[in-house]
């Protein structure tokens, strides 16, 4: 089986569309017959990534590659980059504004949640550069 690729553009501060990409990814995975527990893990990871790109970045893309034995999620934005990745990975640490918190987000759980649901998790970022997150979930 050749792998299947999905890719979505995510625009900065576009809260009205927040979750649309993840919703579409979820539907596509369901059509492929992937089990619901795995789909939920992928959905949470992509949803958190989507929210992060909307809230914190200048915009970016989320790609999902479905292979025979794993699903890979690539989330890339165009900056502005994370100053302290160790702090960003800490549960409860957030730089989100009060407005974001009123939406039920900005609790400092986004990156820890992505890692929590991943079998493999990698984040690359520095100030002035894109943030690139790679998540692998085994099938």
């Amino acid at each position, binding site marked *: 089986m050749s792998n299947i690729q999905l890719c979505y553009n995510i625009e900065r501060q576009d809260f*009205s569309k*927040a979750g649309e990409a993840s*919703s579409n990814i979820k539907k596509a995975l369901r059509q492929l017959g992937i089990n*619901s527990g795995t789909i939920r893990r992928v959905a949470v990871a992509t949803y958190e990534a989507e929210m992060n790109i909307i809230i914190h970045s200048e915009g970016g893309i989320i790609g999902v590659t479905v292979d025979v034995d794993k699903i890979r999620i690539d989330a890339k934005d165009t900056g502005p980059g994370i100053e302290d990745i160790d702090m960003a990975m800490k549960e409860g640490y957030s730089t989100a504004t009060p407005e974001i918190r009123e*939406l*039920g987000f900005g609790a400092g*759980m986004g990156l820890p*949640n992505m890692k*929590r649901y991943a079998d493999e998790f990698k984040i690359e970022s520095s100030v002035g550069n894109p943030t690139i997150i790679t998540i692998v979930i085994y099938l």
Partner: protein
Amino acid sequence: MNLKEVKQLLDAEVLVGEDSLDREVKTVFACDLMSDVLAFVEDKTILLTGLVNPHTIRTAEMMDINAVVFVRGKTPDEETLKLARETGVVILTTRHILYNSCGILYSNGLCGANIVHR
């Protein structure tokens, strides 16, 4: 228990999904912080919350939560209701506060959702 019984116990109004009230309810999760719903919920559960916006519905969709009960008499806007209709999430609203809503359901035999500390 099914959603119809939840509706009766909470004296709730159905805003979306009147024809899906036979859905079974096994557990309940109550929270206003969607990040925590995404972090901890493992069960197919229903969500009680005071947070009324489309992100509540998106979160429910991601977690396969098939019903949301808005507490404290909160009524969502049309955008939220539209998203619920599209995604198949049942929406109830009750005038009870979150604490009492939980107490009523718990005392009628519904337990809290199993959560995972990874």
